[in-house]
């Protein structure tokens, strides 16, 4: 079923466009106001969330839970609506409601600043200055909403498939243009995009079930779903509530397997082929255990391979790995089982689950931007590990592309991004660490010995009367302080790394 999401600015004419388009295409029309009304009926304190999102300092643990509840509710509500037929949704940041679903046509409606001011003056019956202030405030609130709820800026044109300016274009002609665009194959549902939506829907319904039950409603669970496999992660302090995950979610249709993982943080591991027997797997698990982190796997197939398959299927939209033909909703168990094991993902997830470190996993194919879309940018990742990708390339090309991918991810994800080959040297205690710790310890001991055996002359130097002596004392402190902090800091860091308590 097709979905058209129209992101509209205040007084930009987006509402008329959405209603006109829905009427022309005979689609359902859903506004943000309808969605909010439904969320309020659900018992979500939307007003409080809005205020808190505009002023981030207000965010309490309770409101953070309400936000989770709200996101889960809106996702599930939209997915359920789509089951009834194709849909036009219009409202603030509509294009972000179903992340990664490629058949969503994302439209941004803008209008000239002067046009908007005039519309605001007319509608609110205020003077020009007040109308301008009002629009500036609303735009700022909208920007903060997008940033705090979805971790992105709502103003970037690159987030939309099409941006429409209603200054010159009439609403009727814009409706006609969008009607044509919506018929393009790029915006039709594919088995892959349907699966992404099913995953989102299942994850949202599980989260919603947890939020609705009083035994689990006050706990900040994170839920990921992939082809019926659901992973719920929770913080160590919430382990009491975690015992109710199974009974609370038992009634949610579509769950084939449920994993609950206790984790204080998340570690994202991107690779093309996973092997649970490999050294890199053991290193990732060791680090995850040390940090009490859940490991989320992303099996990433690079762009070229996908481009080939896309050409063959005449579907230019990014697809999930190993795309299959549309089956009319009838799933083949055998095929799915084989597909799930591609690249060792299922096997590795199983092993991670056994070790209590599974944070779920999924497959992505396409370019860097498709990979980024598949990553939950609101999730608190502590580390992103990029393993072997671009396996079909030569060693030199693979190294360069890998470096470029890491650099791209570093620019967009707020967590350190490292190559799998650097894990051992950076995060695990090695012989090299032991040697450098000994060196730093020796140097620290020498400095402390010299200072504490020459206290009187040293302190006399620091209380000199002459301006030159005073200046030298100041420079001495300025230079010594970072040296001591650096040397001893590294000793302390190595010691804690050794006892796995960084």
């Amino acid at each position, binding site marked *: 079923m097709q979905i058209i999401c129209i992101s509209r600015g205040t007084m930009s004419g987006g509402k008329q466009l959405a209603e006109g388009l829905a009427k022309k295409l005979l689609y359902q029309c859903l506004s943000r106001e309808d969605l909010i009304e439904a969320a309020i009926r659900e018992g979500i304190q939307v007003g409080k969330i809005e205020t808190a999102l505009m002023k981030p*300092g207000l965010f309490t643990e309770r409101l953070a839970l309400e936000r989770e509840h709200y996101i889960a509710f809106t996702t599930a509500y939209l997915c359920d609506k789509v089951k009834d037929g194709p849909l036009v949704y219009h409202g603030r940041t509509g294009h972000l409601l179903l992340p990664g679903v490629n058949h969503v046509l994302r439209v941004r409606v803008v209008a000239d600043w002067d046009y908007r001011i005039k519309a605001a003056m007319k509608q609110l019956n205020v003077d020009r200055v007040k109308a301008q202030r009002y629009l500036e405030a609303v735009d700022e609130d909208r920007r903060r909403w997008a940033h705090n709820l979805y971790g992105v800026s709502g103003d970037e044109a690159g987030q939309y498939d099409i941006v429409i300016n209603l200054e010159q274009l009439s609403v009727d002609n814009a409706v006609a243009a969008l009607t044509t665009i919506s018929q393009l194959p790029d915006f039709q549902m594919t088995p892959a995009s349907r699966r992404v939506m099913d995953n989102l829907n299942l994850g949202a319904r599980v989260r919603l079930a947890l939020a609705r039950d009083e035994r689990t409603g006050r706990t900040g669970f994170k839920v990921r779903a992939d082809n019926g496999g659901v992973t719920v992660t929770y913080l*160590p302090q919430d382990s009491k509530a975690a015992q109710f995950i199974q009974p609370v979610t038992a009634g949610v249709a579509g769950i084939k397997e449920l994993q609950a993982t206790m984790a204080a943080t998340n570690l994202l591991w991107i690779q093309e082929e996973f092997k649970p027997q490999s050294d890199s797997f053991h290193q990732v698990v060791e680090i995850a255990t040390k940090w009490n982190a859940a490991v989320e796997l992303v099996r990433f197939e690079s762009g070229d391979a996908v481009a080939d398959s896309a050409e063959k299927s005449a579907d230019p939209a990014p697809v999930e790995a190993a795309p299959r033909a549309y089956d009319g909703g009838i799933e083949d168990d055998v095929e799915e089982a084989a597909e799930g094991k591609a690249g060792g993902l299922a096997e590795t997830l199983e092993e991670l689950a056994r070790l209590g470190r599974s944070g779920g996993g999924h497959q992505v194919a396409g370019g860097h931007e498709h990979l980024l879309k598949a990553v939950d940018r609101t999730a608190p990742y502590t580390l992103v590990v990029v393993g072997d990708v671009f396996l079909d390339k030569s060693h030199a090309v693979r190294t360069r592309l890998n470096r470029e991918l890491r650099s791209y991810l570093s620019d967009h994800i707020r967590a350190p991004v490292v190559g799998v080959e650097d894990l051992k040297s950076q995060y695990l205690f090695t012989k090299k660490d032991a040697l450098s710790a000994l060196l730093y310890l020796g140097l620290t001991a020498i400095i402390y010995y010299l200072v504490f055996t020459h206290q009187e002359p040293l302190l006399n130097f*620091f209380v000199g009367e002459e301006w030159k002596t005073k200046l030298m*004392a100041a420079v*001495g*402190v*300025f230079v010594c302080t970072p040296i001591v902090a*650096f040397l001893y800091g590294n000793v302390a860091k190595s010691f804690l790394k050794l006892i796995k308590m960084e």
Partner: protein
Amino acid sequence: MIDYIIPNFIVLDLGSALQVVLLGFIGGVLSGFIGSGGAFFMTPGMMNLGISGVVAVGSNISHKFGKAMMGSKKHGELGNVDKRLGAFLILTSFAGIRLAVWINSMLFSGGGGGSHGEGGGDAASNLYISLVFVCILSLVAISMLRDALKSGDENGSGPSMKIANFLANIHLPPYVHFPVADVRVSLWVLMLVGLATGYLAGTIGVGGFIGVPAMIYVFGVPTAVAAGTELYLAMFMGAFGALNYAYQGYVDIRLMMLLYLGSLVGIYIGTYGTKVVKEVVIRIVTGSIILLCVVSRGVAIPIYLRQLHLISYDPAWDNYFNLGSKIMLFAAGISGCLLILVNVVKAYRQRRQIQSQIFQAPAEA
């Protein structure tokens, strides 16, 4: 009676040296747990050991310089530092530090030519530092406890935003945009916050208690970026404060080094603690510890008032006041620290237990 090796600096025997290391450790644990510099505990603790307030502040701010340098590097790697915001705050914070150093130096060198004890500038400076400490940290502790208790309440809506809303609603151009923190702030509000942060960092070494809440509540900066940027700012403020206090001869490099011995280990343990303790508990523990530190400093104030001849009582009572203040401070620090350590050890053991169960299961099967 305190022995001085040379003017400004006390004799350090093994016992007092170990006490400074302990102060550093507790301060480090609290600092990692709370996310501030820990000076609210270390400065009064050093004063209780007989170290002049101005030397305690000077040594502490130098210690803060190195510690913040190590911390901000890590935050920088995580993308939590808005250097542009830091740069704007640094400029005015330097003015605040200069003001603080000037007041402290004037008080210390005046009224007795910097002598120690009866009627001297030492007492005037100690009194001034203690009063600023008590006033500012009482406000911080009370609002923190009130917010923590409110957020535990079903209908609690979080911290009071009256002042923040008032400042945010004043239209004061020009505005500056900060891309990493993704906020737009009035230049005048920025300057005011920078000045206050610098003044408090220079006077009692706790600029972060003003800087971080201001960045979060007034500027709207995300919490992680506020903490990272504050640490970045603290590095420059620490460097500038260290240069200023060292030029005046008020930095005891021995104390700074002893503080490092404890604090750089403690800070990691404290940070680990935040991952295993609920947010509301963190706020209650933090507020209670700060409040006890305030009361402890308050108990020492009569000593300075008597030394300045503003009140009179038998000088023998000074020892009791000092001892009471010291016991209260250490009790607050140690109990807070123990609470954090117990949770850390519990979580650490729980982790090991789960691991061993996981690894045993297939072997038994």
